[in-house]
């Protein structure tokens, strides 16, 4: 069983013929990965548009929003709820885990596909159904669900309270289906990495990004179960009329909060880890450096994954839990800063002695570190139970988690796309447009969320449709900050057009590249660009770790994993 497959087996791909079998019902991991990625990008546009609409309402309350119209309180609630849900469940997850995982894992561990290609296709199909349902839920009678992405019952449990008889159950159904899709995908990823590695690809030679996706899948698998059970209960509460979460009949509303956050907090790390993996790959290639302390980074990722199961109640400090419990969760929450900080230190240390080239992917990777650091340090204010009393559910929280999620889901994704684009489509993206897009995204991003830190500290709560009824909390300078944030958002969204143009133009007209345009070491660069069905012309074997850059006494400053020790690379 364990013998390597014959090289000629994958030599010439027997490419499926029709459009449908090739792009829609394909079992090829690369096609499925791109399906996830494109779906995620489309959803990101929807989520971004939602942000535009509700930010306009916040900056100019009660005025008609161009391209949308007047925003009612009901619509506002639905917009923020679905913006959050979509950006996490239908953008971050599909792009970072499913998209990258599918595209990269078989290529980076040196095999032809996932171990269960049809399960993989099923996973995407279920995910696609969930996309359709969440979009339908926005337009059903009563409108989309507006009970916040955390969906606390009893509000979420009864149309009597939330006035969205269709929106709420459809939202829940979509989320639950999305979970199932990623459970299937995660099992596939884990088993593939365990069993389908190329000969010589030992555990300590696996590229960090693959490790990260696997650890993330395991954390997801371990945390989502209770919420799936909770979703079943909540769904019955909504549709049949059981009272799992209704205190009037002996149910407990806090139970949902525990189930939700037991998943919800690890979920942050589920998306964080793949993004840090991307950063590790990009940093090493463009600094021409071996990754600093590979094993330590791996250890911090595992430690983060484990500790993330014990921090959930820091979302509930003021939710009516036993005050003594809060101490425990403050301790675990501040403890999780240790491995995450250490991982960042290792990334920063990787730069030492490098030969740093500021290509677009590298700019994104460096921006990830700089911005995520802000998200990290502001998290301390919220993890400390006493300051969280004040800051809980204010814009400070919103700004904090956007400083974590934006680097993860947007900056990390752009780093990944600009870095692997040549592999995906065999062409290079424009560097000029890439850099314009980079600065046009990162600068406005800070201008959106630094003002929100201030409005949060000044006492403005999130999820409030209009501050006109709060004399003290709607002072002119707070309103100015809201306007700055909104204008910056519009600028940032406008710059995404540059990316879309660059992306689709380069797909067809970009400069064609060979197998390894970045002179990188990992196995995906041993395959042709784009890789054919079956990936490799010759199935590779692995001779060393993934980050052998700048090895002394060698002509080339890189040493691909698949090149035998004695053999020198053919000169390009």
């Amino acid at each position: 069983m364990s013998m390597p497959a014959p090289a000629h087996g994958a030599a010439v791909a027997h490419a499926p013929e029709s459009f449908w079998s090739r792009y829609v019902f394909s079992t090829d991991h690369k096609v499925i990965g791109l399906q996830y990625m494109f779906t995620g990008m489309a959803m990101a546009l929807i989520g971004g548009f939602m942000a535009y609409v509700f930010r306009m309402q916040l900056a100019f309350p009660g005025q008609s929003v161009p391209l949308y119209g007047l925003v009612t309180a009901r619509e506002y609630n639905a917009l923020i709820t679905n913006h959050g849900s979509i950006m996490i469940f239908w953008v971050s997850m599909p792009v970072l885990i499913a998209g990258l995982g599918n595209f990269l894992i078989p290529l980076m561990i040196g095999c032809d596909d996932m171990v269960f290609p049809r399960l993989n296709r099923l996973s995407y199909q279920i995910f696609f159904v969930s996309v359709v349902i969440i979009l339908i839920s926005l337009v059903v009678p009563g409108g989309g669900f507006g009970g916040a992405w955390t969906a606390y019952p009893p509000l979420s449990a009864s149309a009597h309270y939330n006035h969205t008889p269709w929106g709420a159950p459809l939202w829940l159904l979509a989320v639950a289906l999305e979970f199932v899709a990623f459970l299937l995908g995660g099992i596939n990823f884990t088993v593939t990495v365990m069993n389908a590695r190329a000969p010589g690809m030992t555990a300590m030679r696996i590229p960090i990004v693959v490790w990260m996706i696997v650890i993330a899948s395991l954390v997801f698998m371990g945390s989502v179960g209770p919420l799936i059970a909770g979703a079943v209960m909540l769904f019955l509460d909504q549709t049949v009329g059981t009272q799992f979460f209704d205190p009037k009949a002996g149910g407990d509303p806090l139970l949902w909060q525990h189930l939700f956050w037991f998943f919800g907090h690890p979920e942050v790390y589920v998306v964080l880890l793949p993004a840090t993996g991307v950063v590790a790959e990009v940093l090493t290639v463009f600094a021409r450096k071996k990754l600093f302390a590979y094993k330590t980074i791996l250890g911090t990722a595992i430690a983060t994954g484990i500790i993330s199961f014990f921090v959930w109640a820091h979302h509930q400090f003021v939710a009516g839990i036993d005050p003594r419990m809060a101490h425990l969760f403050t301790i675990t929450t501040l403890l999780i800063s240790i491995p995450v900080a250490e991982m960042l230190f290792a990334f920063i240390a990787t730069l030492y002695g490098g030969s740093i080239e500021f290509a677009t992917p590298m700019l994104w990777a460096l921006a990830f570190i700089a911005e995520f650091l802000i998200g990290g340090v502001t998290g301390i204010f919220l993890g400390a139970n006493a300051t969280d009393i004040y800051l809980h559910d204010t814009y400070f929280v919103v700004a904090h988690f956007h400083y974590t999620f934006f680097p993860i889901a947007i900056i990390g994704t752009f780093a990944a796309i600009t870095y692997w684009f040549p592999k995906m489509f065999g062409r290079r993206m424009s560097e000029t447009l890439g850099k314009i897009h980079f600065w046009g995204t990162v600068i406005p991003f800070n201008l959106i969320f630094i003002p929100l830190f201030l409005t949060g500290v000044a006492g403005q709560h999130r999820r409030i449709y209009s501050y006109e009824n709060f004399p003290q909390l709607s002072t002119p300078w707070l309103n100015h900050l809201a306007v700055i944030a909104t204008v910056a958002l519009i600028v940032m969204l406008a710059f995404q057009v540059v990316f879309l143009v660059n992306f689709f133009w380069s797909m067809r007209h970009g400069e064609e590249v060979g197998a390894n345009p970045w002179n990188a070491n990992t196995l995906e660069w041993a395959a042709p660009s784009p890789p054919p069905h079956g990936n490799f012309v010759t199935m590779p074997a692995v001779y060393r770790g993934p980050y052998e850059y700048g090895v002394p006494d060698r002509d080339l400053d890189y040493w691909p994993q698949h090149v035998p020790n004695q053999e020198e690379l053919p000169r390009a």
Partner: protein
Amino acid sequence: MSHAADVRAHVPIATGRSATGIPTARLAVWWVLASEIVIFGGLIGSYVMLRLHHPHWAEEASHTNTVAGAFNTFVLLTSSLAAVLAHQAAEARNGPRAARFLGLTILGGLVFLMVKSFEWSNEIAHGFTIFRDVFWSYYYVTCGLHGLHVIVGMVIMGIVAADARRGRNLHRVELIGIYWHFVDAVWIFLFPLFYIAK
């Protein structure tokens, strides 16, 4: 592992590899069960936490049918034994014999479901519906989810048995057996929690 000589057709490689030495399919089943454990764990954990805070649930629990539950425990354990015997037969490459034992396991599942439906119709007739109390909501949802797993297991087992009878895919006999033991183990938790603790 044999492979087609025709190099033009793509021969899957990933599926045939086993870097850990554990067969891929068995590994996958274990991970499926791991994710199932946390689903049931969430449900059972919630039930236990709430039950500790609601002493009156013991009174409600006294209306469940302990005898039927005990009988069902016995049925499931027996069917698990048949699944073990099916696995042994499959190891000995005896497909038809494996299929017969799997049939016995399916029969066990069927008896289990019949007893279950008898219980439920009886309870519902006496007013112990899913709406009566949160205890009953948990009772129906947890046992219902478990019952769903029994049904799914029976369906897959039917497919595996049909294959095994023709001597095909014998390794799947073991896999469905592992799954069936899991379903059995979940019931071992549910029985004391809903039927015995009063």
